[in-house]
């Protein structure tokens, strides 16, 4: 899922400072699961903004709402009748949601309440880590299912660098050296021969180097 976290309160207060009528818009997708932008976080942020405005004598009218997703137009359509009532929409979705919102409602001020961080998962309650860099050309079949792009600090493709010490990364000893893990996994799976394969140069044009990406599924389009 997409992992995000709320922006610093002062930044949010500054972003919304000139708006009197604010819609705080949560998302029931990834940001609910990672406790950044679901119904509960919408309520908390609503309290925070109201408290700040009360304290500083700046009136504000806050509406709180959470959509099933903000990355699908059909859910954003639900705002059509009410969006003109607001000076700004403060989206608690990931950056995808904010973009979809801004595309859908070009005359509305759309603001982000979150910093979108990475694609990852939850290792334990309250701890999330990155697992995928979305490179567009997955090589996990060659690396024992663990990704050297997302999980090697240097994104190396050809084995560990000289900074791998006792299975840890020189960038931070809390980071496991993913090439050590790749080697250990392939050895366990009796697939070390995969490391002998000469791979073609990776096509980064299907990553972010080729401009904004798009998938068209002819079997699904109408």
């Amino acid at each position, binding site marked *: 899922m997409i992992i995000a976290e709320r922006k*610093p*309160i*002062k930044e949010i207060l500054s972003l919304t400072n000139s708006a009197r009528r604010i819609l705080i818009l949560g998302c029931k997708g990834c940001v609910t699961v990672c406790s950044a932008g679901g119904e*509960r976080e919408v*309520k*908390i942020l609503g*309290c*925070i903004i*109201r*408290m*700040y405005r*009360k*304290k500083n*004598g700046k009136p504000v009218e806050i509406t709180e709402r959470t959509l099933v997703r903000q990355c699908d137009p059909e859910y954003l359509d639900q705002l059509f009748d009410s969006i003109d009532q607001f000076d700004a929409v403060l989206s608690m979705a990931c950056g995808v949601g904010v973009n979809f919102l801004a595309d859908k409602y070009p005359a509305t001020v759309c603001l982000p309440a979150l910093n979108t961080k990475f694609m990852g998962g939850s290792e334990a309650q309250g701890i999330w880590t990155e697992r995928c860099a979305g490179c567009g050309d997955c090589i996990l079949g060659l690396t024992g299912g663990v990704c050297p792009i997302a999980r090697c600090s240097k994104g190396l493709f050809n084995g560990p660098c000289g900074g791998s010490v006792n299975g840890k990364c020189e960038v931070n000893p809390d980071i496991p050296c993913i090439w050590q893990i790749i080697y250990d996994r392939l050895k366990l799976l009796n697939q070390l021969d995969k490391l002998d394969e000469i791979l073609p140069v990776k096509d980064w044009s299907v990553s972010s180097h080729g401009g904004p990406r798009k998938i068209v599924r002819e079997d699904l389009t109408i």
Partner: protein
Amino acid sequence: MSNVFKPEIIVFCCRYAVYNFVDDLDRSAISGFPEGVKIEQISCSGRVDVVRLLEALETGADGVYVVGCREETCHNVVGSYRAKKRTDYVKKVLSQLSIEPERVETFVMSRGDEAKFVEMAKEMVGKLNTLGPSPLRGK
């Protein structure tokens, strides 16, 4: 005399911690319990929610605090620990809003210790008398 500040406080207390002396319909039954402290019983201090704490402050409480069982005796194992995490979170929010974080506290006590419960309430009243009214009060 009408200008004398009397802090309005809400205490969220674990029902196990106060099982033997709190009747939520009759706060005055607790000997020496200070005026102005409203009791809300919850099933466990770990059940206290950040939203509820913030809402209490937003709507004019001068202070809020949570009372749970001593950590090692929590009926739900980590309830008191969670309560502390949540009040710490609210303290950080208040700091960022330039509101005194001391308006929020967590206490733990042995189950059924009525005298301690009263003492904690008096401590909060004293602290809030020193801090003065919430900057959100009456706004």
